[in-house]
């Protein structure tokens, strides 16, 4: 088996972070955790994960700012990112940022089964 794929979970809500960590691990991923945007940027740029799950509303630094920071990095410019949030993408601002910073997906947590989220990651990483 090849080296485990690493997935960085940037999520301030511990309970949800744990659920994702457990499920990803169960499915054979190597989860990395960050509890806000700032930590997320730091870990992303240092560990270069295969996939980043990014929440939007977080303390210290929000998800969109974190994504901007990641995109400024030469590695980060093309890093695969999935926005996983509970904020509907209704505001012009979010839509604009999405177009500019090109996350692969924009998923609403409450609408997605956790197994479906992980399956989606698997599909994207062609496992």
């Amino acid at each position, binding site marked *: 088996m090849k080296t485990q794929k690493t997935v960085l979970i940037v999520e301030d809500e511990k309970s949800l972070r744990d659920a994702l960590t*457990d499920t990803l691990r169960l499915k054979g991923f190597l989860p990395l955790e960050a509890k806000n945007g700032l930590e997320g940027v730091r870990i992303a740029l240092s560990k270069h994960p295969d996939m980043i799950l990014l929440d939007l509303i977080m303390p210290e630094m929000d998800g969109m700012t974190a994504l901007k920071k990641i995109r400024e990095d030469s590695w980060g410019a093309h890093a695969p990112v999935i926005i996983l949030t*509970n904020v509907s993408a*209704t505001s012009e601002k979010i839509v604009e940022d999405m177009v500019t910073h090109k996350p692969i997906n924009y998923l609403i947590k*409450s609408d997605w089964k*956790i197994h479906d989220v992980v399956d989606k990651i698997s599909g994207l990483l062609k496992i």
Partner: protein
Amino acid sequence: MDKKVVIPKFDDLILTLKVLAKDKEDVRRKLAVTAKKLALKAKQLAVTAADKESIRRELEITAKDKENVRRELEITARDKENVRQKLAVTAKKLALKAKQLAVTAADKESIRQKLTVTAKELKKSYETLEKKVSERTKDLEQARAKDVAILSSIADGLIVTDEKGRITFGNSVFEQLLGWRLDEAKGKLLTDLVPMFNSLGNKMTQTERLLTLSLTKGQSTPVTGAVYKYSRKDGSVFPAMISVSPVVIAGVAVGAVEVFRDVTKEEKIDKAKTEFVSLASHQLRTPLTMIGWYTEMILKGDVGELLPNQKKYLEEIYEGNKRMVDMVNTLLDVSRIELGTFKVEPKPTDIMALAQSVLDEQKPEIEEKKLVIDEDFGKGFPIFLTDAKLLRMVFQNLLSNAVKYTPPGGRIGFSISLDDEKILHIKVSDTGYGIPNNQKDQIFTKLFRADNVRSKDTTGTGLGLYIIKSIIENSGGKIRFESEENKGTAFYVTLPSASSSR
């Protein structure tokens, strides 16, 4: 001649004759002489007779004269009588005339008196009238002052125009809100002085203005929502709720009254409210996600096998959570509609696949209720340009309503067709409970649920039809329905292709 003189002479003669007879002898002798004397005497007598005759004649003449005189007198008397009579008549006439004159005079007097009275009365009446007029004028002035005060004190902006639309009055709120002084505004055309903008931000033309409609068609516009914006003197705008009514006198519009209210504050409050709902809903999603994900993890057996009852109970929790998630999503849709952030994002869409997937979602309940589905998707479709997410919501709402409100064993029709003008026709029919006649006009109202289904189903929010009507109309389409209680309902939707609506 005097009669007394004649009569004694005659008596003397007779006496002489008697003496003569006694002395016949003597006398016969003396007869000759006496005859002579007699002849003389006869002569004298003849003369006397002649005298007598003449006297008689004279007397006759005298008598005649007398007669004449008498006659004359008679005539004179008669004349006199005539004159007298005439005089009497004249006197009578005069008397009559005098009477008449007296009457006339009396009449004149009475008229004069009456005239005097009338003049007095007139003067009195005039004075009373004068008094009344001045009192009434005072009353009217007071009433007018009161009216003006009332109009001026109305908390909404008020503009009155004449039949040409020229401003004749504006209250103080009008002055405050629009920045125009009444004396500047008076006589100007309201439509020129105060430009108005519609919900799309376009300046409204003269003919589009509610005032014009009111003046030309005499129609009253009820209070509108804040879809209009008024332009102030300095060019800035504010949202306004407005109503216009014609002023009609004897069936003719002689002007119009425009009442408006600055709803900036209300709009802000409304927006804040909607934003709160949106935020609250997002916050609600996090705990719902926790419940959903962990329940799912257990149900999937991630942490070991479950006992049948444990699985059943967890499924109940999962379903309850799912319903809550749906409700929050619906609330968010409503707040998006009301915030105006419902964006239509048209993409080429496979309508049949979309319809099939929505139908598949409903399968479990359809099978449970043993409903028969009559699908009619024609011969399939070319790819249709529309917002798939929004069209999915339309399909979902109509189908889930049909499934929910049809008793077991009923039929549901689901047909979709595309006409030559690239308009999509959707029909969803059922043999369900139907919509009561008296509530048909409320069916698209937010939070409305018909009485006959409220008792049968407690999960509805009364938001579905409100949302899809907004979506459909936002996309340039239309929705209508036919329904009969306990027979069924059919919803008809027409939706133009996004390209043709742009």
